[in-house]
Structures are given as structure tokens and as C-alpha cells.
């Protein structure tokens, strides 16, 4: 029995690796999808974000006897708004505001909605001059204040522009160490992390779309494909229980999903570079994990569908219909908000649960007030249990269908 199962799995994987369209779906497709999405975002960012946007600068730097680094910083930024190739080209700097303290600057942003605002403290030059490369902690030098309803892409660009200025002459004249530690501090008021929430929503959508699509190719090859290519009956005539044949194929699908997950990690790295968002390894790990779960659930559902359908064309059509429409639906709700905090019919869609898991693991603070059970951990467990049951039911249905006499063609 063990030998049969391993033989079957090895054979399935071998064939899959020799099947070009399968390799494409599992390895190339995820890279392509992430790259494409990233590219679209990238173009959107570089084309539209800065033109006509205004940002505020309050420079309170007193300088020292020879130089005022704050003024220099503002000058450099101002120059960037005029350089055609720069990412903040076309934006306008407003330097007319005056405050007496950092907290006044904060209230300008929070209460008057004056943002994004760059605050340069009185001691900017002094701190910089006294900075020694033995200092290991990051020195908050200047602060970029923004609000969630600011143009997130513009704020992103502005922050990048600041980092560019801070890491070039004259700010780099001292040591490498100084530059890397001498950082810009960024604060977003209200709904902290909203912006990355949007980004993660987008990622969840792409991930779900890929995770749902990828197994389809293997499933149709492994099930309807066997029937259409006239290899199934001989397989069923082997001394192996049908349920074990099914199990072998499911395990093979799972292994392929892991290969696919690796390819996705590469895709995500490319994506995050293109959209200039730093996804942490933890975030990528969670996304990958949820992706594998999603893919596995899709496998279960796909196997039931293909065992029903009379040929792989029908199977594919049904699969697309059953999978894609809910995926797109769920995807949009992931991008534009959080998953519902009431048990509604949308929770019948398994992807709603995978996205819920994703959101709740990554943003426990944001979602702590909108849980189903009142406790975020309990919620995550609930979603995972639902997914587990869903997979189990799919496999039982598939096993039943797989055991029918009519699986053989007459």
C-alpha cells in the first residue's frame, strides 16, 4: 500500500513536471501575475501621483554657525519637484506655516487636515553634527506627518523622495553608518496602517486569484484528463482502492501547491519592489500560508467538480464559474474593506474565510472591534475549522463520485 501510494505520487509529479501548461500554471503564472499587478501599480504610481499635489514643510531648524541643514533639505526637495524624472515632479511645496512646537504641528495635521506635512525640528543640524557612528539607535531627525485620507501613493513617493535626499550629498558626507541610521520618521494619524491594509487587501485578492486558478490545470489533467486520454480504466483496474488513488492524487496536488507557493514568494518580492512597499517576511509568510490553504481548498472543490463533469471542458467551465465569480466578489470586498463582522451568506464562500484569516492575522488591532465571536483568535480558529470541514466534505463527495460505475466510459 505504501509503495503504491508513493509510486502513484511520484508518477503524478513526474508527469506534471513534463506538462508545459502545468508548469506554466504552477511556476510561471504566479510570477507573471504578481509582476503584472506590480507593473500596473508601478505605472499608476509614476504617472499620476505627484502632479499638482501639495505638501507642507515646517522648518524650525536653527542650524549652527556655518550651515542650516533644514534649509538645505527644503532646497533639495524643491529642486526635485522641478526635475522631470523625479518621483515628486510637479508637486508644490508650501512653506508658509509657522508653529512653536511639534505638538502644534501635530494638531495642524489632525484637526485642520493640513497634510502631508514635513516637520524639521530646531535641533536638526545639531543632532546631525553630533551624531557619531558608534550610535546604534535610529535618530528620528525629520518627521513626515500624514493622514489616511491623503493620497497614499503620493505620500509614499514623498517619503521616498525624502529618503533619496537624506541619503545623498551633503547628508552622506560623513559615514555610511550615519546615513543608514539617520532616518526619516513617518507618522500616519488615525487608523494606523490603513494604507498597508489596502495594499494587503490587494495582495489577498491577487493571491486568492492565483491560488484558485493554479490547481485547476493539475486537477483537470489528473482526473478528467485520465478519462479523456484513456488511461483511467487501467489505473482503476490496479489492486489499489479508489479512495487511495484519490488520496495519492490529492497529495500530489498538495506537493505541487508547495512548489507553487515558493514561486509565489518570488512573485511577491518582485511585486513589493515594484510598488515600493516593504512586505515583511512575516507578512509574506502569512500570505503564503493562506495561499497554500486556499489552493488546497480549491483542489478539494475542483476534484468534486471534475468527478461530476463528463469531460474536462465541462469541468473547466464549471470550475471557472464556481471559482472565479466568488473569488472576484471576495477579492473586491478584500480590497475595499474588511470581511463582514456578521455571519452572512457570503461566509458560505470559502475564500471569504481565507481572506478573513489573512486580515485577522495581519491586522489584529484594526479588526479587534469587528470580530464574529468577540475574540480574534477564536475567529481565526472558526475560519480555519470551516475551511477544514469544507475540504473534508469536498473529498467525501469526490470519493463518492469517484466510486461510481459510470466513471468508466461505455
Amino acid at each position, binding site marked *: 500500500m505504501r509503495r503504491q501510494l508513493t*509510486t502513484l505520487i511520484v*508518477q503524478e509529479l513526474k508527469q506534471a513536471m513534463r506538462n508545459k501548461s502545468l508548469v506554466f500554471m504552477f511556476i510561471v503564472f504566479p510570477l507573471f501575475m504578481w509582476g503584472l499587478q506590480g507593473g500596473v501599480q508601478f505605472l499608476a504610481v509614476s504617472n499620476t501621483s505627484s502632479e499638482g499635489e501639495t505638501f507642507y514643510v515646517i522648518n524650525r531648524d536653527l542650524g549652527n554657525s556655518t550651515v542650516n541643514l533644514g534649509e538645505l533639505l527644503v532646497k533639495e526637495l524643491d529642486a526635485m519637484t522641478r526635475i522631470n524624472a523625479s518621483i515628486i515632479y510637479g508637486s508644490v511645496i508650501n512653506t508658509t506655516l509657522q508653529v512653536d512646537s511639534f505638538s502644534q504641528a501635530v494638531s495642524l495635521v489632525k484637526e485642520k487636515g493640513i497634510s502631508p506635512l514635513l516637520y524639521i525640528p530646531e535641533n536638526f543640524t545639531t543632532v546631525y553634527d553630533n551624531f557619531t557612528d558608534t550610535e546604534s539607535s535610529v535618530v528620528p531627525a525629520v518627521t513626515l506627518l500624514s493622514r489616511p485620507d491623503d493620497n497614499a501613493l503620493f505620500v509614499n513617493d514623498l517619503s521616498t523622495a525624502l529618503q533619496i535626499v537624506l541619503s545623498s550629498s551633503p547628508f552622506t558626507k560623513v559615514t555610511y553608518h550615519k546615513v543608514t541610521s539617520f532616518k526619516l520618521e513617518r507618522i500616519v494619524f488615525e487608523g494606523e496602517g490603513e494604507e498597508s491594509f489596502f495594499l494587503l487587501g490587494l495582495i489577498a485578492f491577487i493571491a486568492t486569484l492565483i491560488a484558485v486558478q493554479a490547481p485547476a490545470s493539475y486537477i483537470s489533467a489528473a482526473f478528467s484528463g485520465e478519462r479523456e*486520454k*484513456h488511461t483511467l480504466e487501467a489505473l482503476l*483496474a490496479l*489492486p489499489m482502492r479508489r479512495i487511495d488513488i484519490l488520496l495519492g492524487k490529492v497529495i500530489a496536488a498538495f506537493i505541487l501547491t508547495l512548489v507553487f507557493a515558493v514561486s509565489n514568494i518570488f512573485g511577491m518580492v518582485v511585486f513589493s519592489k515594484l510598488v515600493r512597499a516593504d512586505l515583511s517576511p512575516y507578512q509574506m509568510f502569512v500570505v503564503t500560508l493562506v495561499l497554500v490553504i486556499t489552493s488546497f481548498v480549491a483542489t478539494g472543490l475542483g476534484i468534486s467538480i471534475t468527478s461530476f463533469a463528463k469531460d474536462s471542458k465541462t469541468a473547466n467551465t464549471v470550475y471557472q464559474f464556481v471559482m472565479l465569480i466568488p473569488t472576484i466578489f471576495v477579492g473586491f470586498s478584500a480590497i475595499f474593506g474588511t470581511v463582514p463582522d456578521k455571519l452572512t451568506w457570503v461566509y458560505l464562500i470559502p475564500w471569504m474565510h481565507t481572506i478573513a484569516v489573512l486580515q485577522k492575522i495581519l491586522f489584529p488591532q484594526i479588526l479587534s472591534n469587528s470580530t464574529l465571536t468577540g475574540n480574534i483568535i477564536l475567529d481565526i480558529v472558526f475560519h480555519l475549522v470551516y475551511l477544514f470541514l469544507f475540504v473534508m466534505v469536498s473529498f467525501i463527495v469526490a470519493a463518492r463520485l469517484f466510486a461510481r460505475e459510470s466513471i*468508466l466510459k461505455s
Partner: protein
Amino acid sequence: MGIIEIRGLNKFFGSFHALKDIDLTIREGEVFGLLGLNGAGKTTLIRILMGLLNPSSGSVRVFGIDPSTNPLPIRKRASLLPQECQAYENLTAMENILYYGLMQSEAPKEELIERANYLIDLIGLKGRENQLTKKFSGGMKRKVLVARSVVGNPDLLFLDEPTTGIDVLGARKVRNLIQKLSRNEKKTIILTTHDLTEINLLCDRVGILVDGELKAIGTPDELEGQFQAANIEDIFSSLVEGRIGGDEE
């Protein structure tokens, strides 16, 4: 006791009566040919013997075991080459053959490799065993499939139309292979065919199925005596024409 014992077997698909009161005993070591028009029930009968379909009534024993309740021990000792069966085209000839061997038999892998090599030699594919079968001709593929079905050294072989759909030369090679398996390896073989010369060349006994009924069983000689006909072809035509009530055609 025969290797296969069938008593009063009936098979219905819904209300369609596909096999009608079949009684048949197959002896060890013989090559038995099942003859019948399209839809006569040949494939259905074989599938029941392999436990792929369940009988509607009657009793079936293969190696003394009921295939409808306990098919796995039967499948360890019996192979099926289904009608229109294909090899896995993304596997090489060797991989196709070995795959089946590892799945069917409990023999050590080395032993199976050795036997696979012997079979590859026997079917004349030496030197091409590591090519993907998608590059093979129809006849070559069929020979791989026949080799595959005996790699696990089963005692019983079901070959459902092993020579249909390949060219004359390919068919002849497959027939030679079947002959060798019968003579050299003493396999019990049950094959279905539409080809009457094949029956004469290969089969010790013949069964003629007409509309799910086993109308005649015996050696070609016995049948010729029984029906007072010169050859199987005449017997077959008269049985089949009897079915359509003497109409022209």
C-alpha cells in the same frame, strides 16, 4: 474448477439488459476469445470480471473470489488492458511499464526492472525504452501496454480488443506477443476482438456474444461441427443474422 466461473450472470444498465444469463468457465492456461458485434457486451463482461462493474444478478468467481466484493486480490493476479487504452504519454516506455509493475506486484523493484527490460526486449523496443511514449506509433504504444500488463507477472490477462485501431503490421506484432505470452509464460488470456482470423490464430476456445447472450462456446473445431459450418466466420454471421431475423445486410 476453472480459473473463472460465471453462473447465471445478468447485467442491467437501468432497464437495458446488457448481459443475459451468462454461464461460462475459463480454464487455466487457455486463450479464450470473445467475439461479438459492437454493443454485444464483451467489455461489460470483462469489467465485471475485474470488479469494475457489479453484476445485477448471478455469481462470478475469479480465482474462486467474488470480484464485486473483493476485487483487490484478483487484481494482483489479473491484468486488464482496456479497450482504447493509452499509455501515459509524458512517461517513457520504461516508466509506463514499471509504473504498472510497482502498483500491481509486490516483487522487489530490481526484479521488476529486470523483467521490464526483458519485456522491452521481447516487444522489440530495446534502445527506445527511455523515450516518451507520445513519440511512438500506435503499434508500439500498444505493445508497451501489453508488456505493461504482464510486468507484474499476473496469471490472467484480459485484453479488450488489443489489435483494434492499429495498422496491419502493428496488429501482427501484438498478436505475436500474445502468442509468446501464452506459450512461453503459460498465461491464461481472455481477449475480445472483431477480427476472425485473430480468433483462428490465437484462441483455444471462442465464445460468441450476441446482444448480451452467449450463443456459442467451444473450440473452433467443435463449433464448426456443432453448427455444420466451414469456419467461424460463417457461424458468426449466421448467429448474428439470426438476431436480425434474416433481413438482408
